[in-house]
């Protein structure tokens, strides 16, 4: 038995890195400390895709890695509008090869941000993002606002490690000297802990942000008695708390990115943060979901100039979410081939896009079987990043942390699979060029 410390969790955007596990006979046998229950279950492992496989006559037939990679390369090299999607549950080293592959075959490369915090990215492109690292929040924040986010359920360690409950330099007494405001359409588990809970009407976040901004700038007289289901009195109280805080932070989640004004809700949330910043220190941060969705956004940005929904069909990058995002492309039936890595559109995409996927060649690279496997034509199993393979990831506050390898594996890492596909694609193109 070996004890491994400082293990980094490859589950959610919290990327907890102080986990201790026990490894015996090349298996993680115990998670001793640091992980939440969901993180623990990922570390302990579950069912795997056993073998590379190619679909023949409707059913998947096991094959070698070589054959699956070759088949994948043939499909991709022949495509006129291929989509390469996923990327947020693997490491940056693999993401880099993915961008190179997209460039080589003139693909659209998109990542799961386009169905989670893509709206936040669009908002940042409009107004920027006054933010900080999570340690700043831990050490300084005396006012924490969760807006459309329910960390008690979705990011179980978030409050304990970084925000409301954590203890830091100026916050040595934990939540005792902090205030918690929760804004949501329903009374969530997080809302039950709050000092102030603003229950907002579905889809009316935008109005509430504008009202707060007007109040923060001193124009409360124009604001009506009720905005988006919230009373003016409660809004005034919220504004008072924001102004009086020494260090405030808004964490927002998908409850606000996907309803009503969607990405413009976030534009407005950020503008509210800026308005508060005229009084005191105020920050805002998206609650990123997958452990490396921030990372693929980073890699894609430094390599192509843009974080997601990048169309490389003309040999250079063109960026337009809503046009080049995966679900839009599929609903519009634009793609003729799709490769999915470390993601499960079969479970998460709208039915219309799945119907199109059923008709076109689909390649899947993943450690785990999921609904996408049901219609994939080439399935390539991969090592699990953070357990069987190491590599770089970015936490939700864009802090880079290196995933550790805990056990050995026979499975190929994502990076190697992609490099081999890229090599095969280049060989095919060279042959065609002759």
């Amino acid at each position, binding site marked *: 038995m070996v004890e491994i410390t400082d293990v980094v969790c490859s589950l959610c955007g919290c990327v907890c890195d102080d986990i201790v596990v026990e490894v015996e006979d090349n298996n993680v046998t115990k998670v001793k400390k640091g992980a939440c229950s969901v993180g623990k279950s990922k570390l302990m492992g579950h069912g795997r895709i056993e073998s590379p496989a190619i679909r023949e006559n409707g059913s998947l037939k096991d094959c070698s890695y070589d054959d699956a990679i070759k088949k994948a390369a043939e499909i991709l090299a022949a495509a006129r509008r291929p989509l390469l999607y996923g990327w947020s549950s693997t490491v940056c080293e693999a993401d880099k090869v993915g961008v190179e592959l997209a460039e080589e075959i003139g693909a659209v490369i998109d990542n799961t941000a386009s169905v989670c915090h893509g709206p936040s990215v669009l908002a*940042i492109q409009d107004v920027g993002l006054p*933010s900080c690292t999570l340690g700043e929040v831990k050490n300084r924040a005396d006012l924490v606002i969760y807006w459309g986010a329910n960390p008690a359920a979705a990011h179980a360690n978030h409050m304990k490690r970084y925000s409301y409950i954590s203890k830091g330099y100026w916050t040595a007494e934990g939540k005792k000297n902090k205030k918690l405001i929760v804004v949501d359409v329903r009374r969530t588990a997080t809302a039950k802990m709050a000092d102030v809970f603003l229950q907002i009407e579905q889809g009316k976040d935008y109005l509430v942000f504008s009202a707060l901004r007007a109040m923060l700038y001193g124009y409360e007289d124009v604001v009506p008695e009720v905005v988006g289901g919230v009373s003016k009195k409660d809004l005034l109280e919220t504004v008072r708390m924001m102004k009086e805080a020494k260090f405030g932070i808004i964490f927002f989640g998908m409850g606000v990115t996907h309803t009503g004004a969607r990405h413009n809700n976030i534009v407005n949330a950020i503008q509210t943060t800026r308005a508060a910043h005229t009084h005191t220190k105020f920050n805002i941060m998206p609650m990123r979901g997958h452990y490396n969705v921030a990372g693929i956004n980073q890699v894609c940005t430094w390599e192509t100039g843009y974080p997601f929904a990048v169309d490389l069909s003309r040999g250079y990058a063109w960026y337009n979410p809503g046009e080049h995002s995966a679900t839009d492309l599929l609903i519009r039936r634009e793609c003729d081939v799709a490769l999915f890595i470390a993601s499960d559109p079969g479970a998460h995409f709208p039915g219309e896009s799945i119907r199109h996927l059923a008709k076109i060649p689909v390649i899947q690279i993943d450690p785990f079987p999921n609904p996408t496997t049901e219609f994939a034509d080439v399935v390539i199993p991969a090592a699990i990043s953070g357990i069987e393979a190491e590599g770089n990831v970015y936490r939700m506050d864009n802090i880079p942390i290196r995933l550790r390898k805990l056990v050995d594996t026979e499975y190929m890492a994502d990076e190697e699979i992609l490099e081999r596909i890229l090599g095969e694609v280049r060989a095919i193109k060279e042959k065609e060029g002759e």
Partner: protein
Amino acid sequence: MVEELLIRNGVVYDPINGVNGEKKDICIRDGKVVEEVRNPKVIDAEGRVVMPGGVDIHAHIAGGKVNAGRLFRPEDGRKGREAKTKVCRAQSGYSVPNTFATGYRYAKMGYTFVMEAAMPPLAARHTHEEIVDIPILDNAALPLIDNNWMTMEYVKSGDTDLLAAYIAWMVKATKGYGVKVVNPGGTEAWAWAKNCDLNDAVPYFDVTPAEIVKGLAEATEKFEMPHSIHVHGNMLGHPGNYEVTTSTYDLVKGIKPYRDRPTMHATHTQFHSYGGTTWADFESKAGAIADYVNKNEHVSIDLGSVILGDTTTMTADGPMEYSLYQITGRKWTNHDVELETGSGITPFLYSGKVSVHTIQWAIGQELALLIKDPWKLALTTDHPNAGPFIGYPIIISMLMSKRRRDESAEDMHSAIYKRAELPSIDREYDLNEIAIITRGMAAKTLGLHEHGKGHLGVGADGDVAIYDLSPEEREAGKIQKAFLNTKYTIKGGEVVVKDGEVVAAPAGKTYFVTPECDEKLTEEMMTHLKDKFEHYYSVTFNNYPVQDAYVPNPYEIKAPWRS
């Protein structure tokens, strides 16, 4: 296989070796300059200007804030689009180009080394990940070590040796090159939305920025560091800041450097040479700064010269970016980094029709023209803060042509004639001086001349720029064009640019310094440091240092403790 190259009959400017416009052959074997070659490939450089590969002492090309700049400016991305080629990856961006474009465009200007000027230690992995994706250029990065709680605590307690031990650990942990200072104390204050002037107390830490600068300079000079502290002082960009600037220079006057180099490199000095009390009576004080630099040997500077047009400003100086955003109302990103530093980013348009911008534009050039000894200054635009690096050839042509400066001034705001000195300066740079401020000085100031950079002496790296330019050429437009796209750029003996096109894109090397510190001292420092990780950092001590995997092409420089 022995690879040999002969560059024949070029007019060579190699100021480190005292070669000033001599017709001379350059021989390269296996990537290094040698006395002679036997069976070389030959490049005919007859009548053309030949210089060592350019060395940029200060630019923001990789890391968290550069990428935040790219991410929030898709409108900048659309400006520099070029499709992939057999050699090149797809390119995008103007003021914040993607990593690939960054490498290609520098190489096309004849540059082969760039210093990334600000690496937040906690995010050092990010800087290195991007650097790996910048083709061709050799590189290094300067970690920010001035607003760090550890630094301020040791400065307060006066434990210079422990501060040195901390510096050593930090430079090693980040695979960095030296000690970067950005608005010392002010960036920590910004975590509470405040700022610090040079002698203000930093909130809660009870030290002043002046004490931090002095402490860091003393601690840095405990080692044989190739480069001095690299300082972006307090009050950057504020009218009337020139006195803060010279007071900051004074802080390190008595400190003895380990070798023949300054004890402070003061960066993007244009932004620190301002007179007046408000933007209304804003004026150039380049003369006062130049006067100081002329009379003293302990300070070197780089220009931070303005390129007119749209750009993306970015710095660890969070409060400065906030002030700028308040002026423009444009988008603004801020990212404070726990226990260490911060950063701010906002787009900015320098317009020749605006009085303040016109004066800023003049100041950068005034510094270059009023400082007598070109070995004291390097050409930079603090890319992309005062403008993107691809504007360097514009500055070169301005410095070489009084006529071009006069013609430009005519189209600009009349404030240039009233509140700047530039129109009255007649000096023109020659090619030797240009070679000094674009390669020689930077290489020497960074200590890289001892590692083969910035010159063409025997043993130097085979990094050569051949410009399609006759030494007699005086026409500014032709000079600018020649410096934008080389005839040839040769990197480590390999032709990487030919006729302005990138023809090869090998990976560059990452230079990093290993300061060597007494074990007992390190152990004592470590008890304090581990306490910080235990209680205040959000990552663990063991997950903090940059792993070797992030620096695939390392070049280590050891910096022993000075006896």
